[in-house]
């Protein structure tokens, strides 16, 4: 069985991505848009469009009631949430079900379980996944201190409900602990209105490794290899690739097996990503969190495996069994993705949106571009600054990176006030540490520091 119609509860490139998968399956699509996107709506975003609210996301793309009402109004059978916005909101997933709509994603209770990072780690620990030594749950100062001592410094103190790199502090030795502990609680209280904090080991040099899994309703679960997302700035991924240059086949198998064990234990369904930190020295890996949605970087996995992940999401949600078994998944070559953001790397990556007077994507062999942009689009300041993803494949990593540099050089984005990260990304992937493939999560800060600011009137 296939859906006849799907409402795409998102915007930008991922909305286009979902619509493409739907069209290739013959599914009618309904797009929703806010007033900020009113002039940017076009048929790549859906066969029908519904204006659901004003620019502020909480009144439009985060407005569960408006999205569900729109789905009912237009007779959608299912809702695909994309990433961000409502994609990992268990209440929204539940509300879809209550209104007879199929939510394309895991069951609400699974989303809820992984939403609480501390609880999720505890659960995955019980399931046998390696987790970072730590208190797991909230601890008072004395207990925290004791924990830190036997975990061994450096440790990180972080808000239980925190995220996005805020409300956390690294402590390098016992003397600094007490002050850091109190500061973090205070910050947590201000930021999240919840001052509970936990303590765990801090890895000074780590690689971000994640596993893509697919699970259906018939007990089938497969992994599609690992992605390396170590090139991050303030926990925002800039460049992702598959496989990982620092993870050999044997280690990749062990990490993937751990992810599948976790997925099965959690009763996972759909496409999901299990994130791990790989200690650059000890080569030990630790489960960090699981993302119950399609990821921005999913195309690198698609290019090495030939599997259309969004198509699989839609088929799984419709109750179909996976289209492949584990032995059918044979990754070939290397794929790299660069995120083109409307940000100015020379001014601390401040958003630099505006009207696009020029937009010419790269093309040619083994180059893929996912974007909602076109000449004449005005990039709005209201939402995430991602305007395009450039993905390149090669039989080996060097060829893939040479191709990426060529593709980024081809990309033309220009407009009054518009800046992009393109030039910065070319420098990043040309950096010796990245080229060698030995970079850790600290690479981007290093490149930013090394970099001489240079005026970039356009990214060309």
């Amino acid at each position: 069985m296939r859906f006849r119609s799907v409402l795409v509860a998102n915007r930008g490139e991922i909305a286009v991505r979902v619509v493409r998968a739907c069209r290739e399956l013959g599914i009618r699509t309904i797009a929703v848009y806010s007033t900020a996107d009113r002039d940017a709506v076009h048929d790549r975003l859906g066969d029908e469009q519904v204006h659901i609210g004003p620019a502020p996301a909480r009144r439009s793309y985060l407005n569960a009631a408006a999205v569900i009402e729109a789905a009912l109004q237009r007779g959608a059978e299912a809702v695909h949430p994309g990433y961000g916005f409502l994609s990992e909101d268990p209440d929204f997933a539940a509300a879809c079900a209550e209104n007879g709509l199929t939510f394309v994603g895991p069951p609400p209770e699974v989303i809820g379980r992984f939403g609480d990072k501390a609880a999720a780690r505890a659960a995955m620990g019980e399931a046998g996944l390696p987790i970072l030594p730590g208190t797991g749950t909230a601890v008072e100062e004395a207990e925290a201190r004791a924990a830190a001592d036997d975990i061994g410094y450096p440790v990180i103190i972080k808000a239980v409900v925190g995220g996005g790199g805020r409300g956390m502090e690294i402590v390098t030795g016992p003397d600094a602990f007490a002050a850091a502990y109190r500061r973090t609680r205070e910050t947590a209280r201000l930021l999240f209105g919840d001052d509970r904090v936990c303590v765990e080991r801090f890895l000074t040099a780590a690689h971000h490794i994640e596993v893509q899994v697919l699970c259906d309703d018939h007990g089938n679960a497969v992994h599609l290899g690992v992605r390396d997302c170590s090139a991050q700035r303030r926990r925002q991924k800039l460049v992702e690739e598959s496989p990982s240059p620092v993870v050999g086949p044997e280690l990749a198998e062990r990490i993937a097996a751990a992810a599948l064990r976790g997925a099965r234990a959690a009763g996972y369904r759909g496409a999901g990503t299990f994130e791990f930190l790989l200690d650059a020295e000890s080569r030990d890996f630790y489960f960090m969190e699981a993302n119950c949605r399609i990821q921005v970087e999913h195309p690198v996995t698609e290019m090495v495996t030939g599997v259309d992940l969004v198509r699989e999401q839609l088929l799984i949600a419709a109750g179909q069994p996976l289209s492949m078994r584990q032995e059918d998944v044979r990754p070939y070559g290397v794929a790299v993705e660069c995120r083109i953001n409307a940000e100015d790397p020379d001014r601390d990556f401040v958003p630099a949106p505006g009207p696009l007077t020029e937009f010419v994507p790269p093309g040619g062999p083994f180059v893929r571009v996912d974007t909602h942009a076109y000449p004449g689009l005005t990039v709005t300041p209201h939402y995430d600054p991602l305007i395009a993803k450039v993905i390149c494949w090669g039989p080996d990593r060097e060829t893939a990176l040479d191709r990426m540099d060529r593709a980024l050089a081809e990309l033309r984005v220009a407009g009054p006030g518009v800046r992009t990260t393109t030039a910065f990304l070319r420098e990043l992937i040309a950096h010796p540490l990245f080229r060698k493939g030995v970079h850790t999560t600290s690479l981007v800060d290093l490149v930013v520091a090394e970099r001489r600011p240079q005026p970039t009137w356009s990214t060309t």
Partner: protein
Amino acid sequence: MNDQESPLDQLRRTAAALLELSPSPPSGLRLRSGDLSVEVDWAEPAPVAAVGRTAVSATVGATAEEPAAAPVAVRAPLLGTFYRAPAPEAPPFVALGDRVEVGQQIGIVESMKLMNPVESEVAGEVVEVLVADATAVEYDQALLMVATDRAGGGCAEVFGGGERP
């Protein structure tokens, strides 16, 4: 105004008048005569922005001649089902030709089984009803048109209402 005056002369005179609206010198100026039309650009405008500006100057031109206000739309505050009356049998909140006051309820939008009153933001006469009873409406969809007492309304309409960024 002198009837003998050629269309072009009218346009030029209008342009001159418009230029007084800004201290800075113009960067572009277009007259036409088929159906009249004046366009003035100041500074270097972003291509997109230029359109907007043109629209405005055009309206300014319009209001200059006939100060009568353009009708204003009363729009749906949220997406849902629009009802013109409090109940199936009841008479509509407002009908064509009725006068509405600011804050007066003109209908209901039902969303997720909640009834949300729709109130007019302007005072004036209902000159058009755009949406039938029990019809699905989008956010910001025009429900009915009101000929306002104040010319100010004209601008709201020019700028398309809603919360356009």
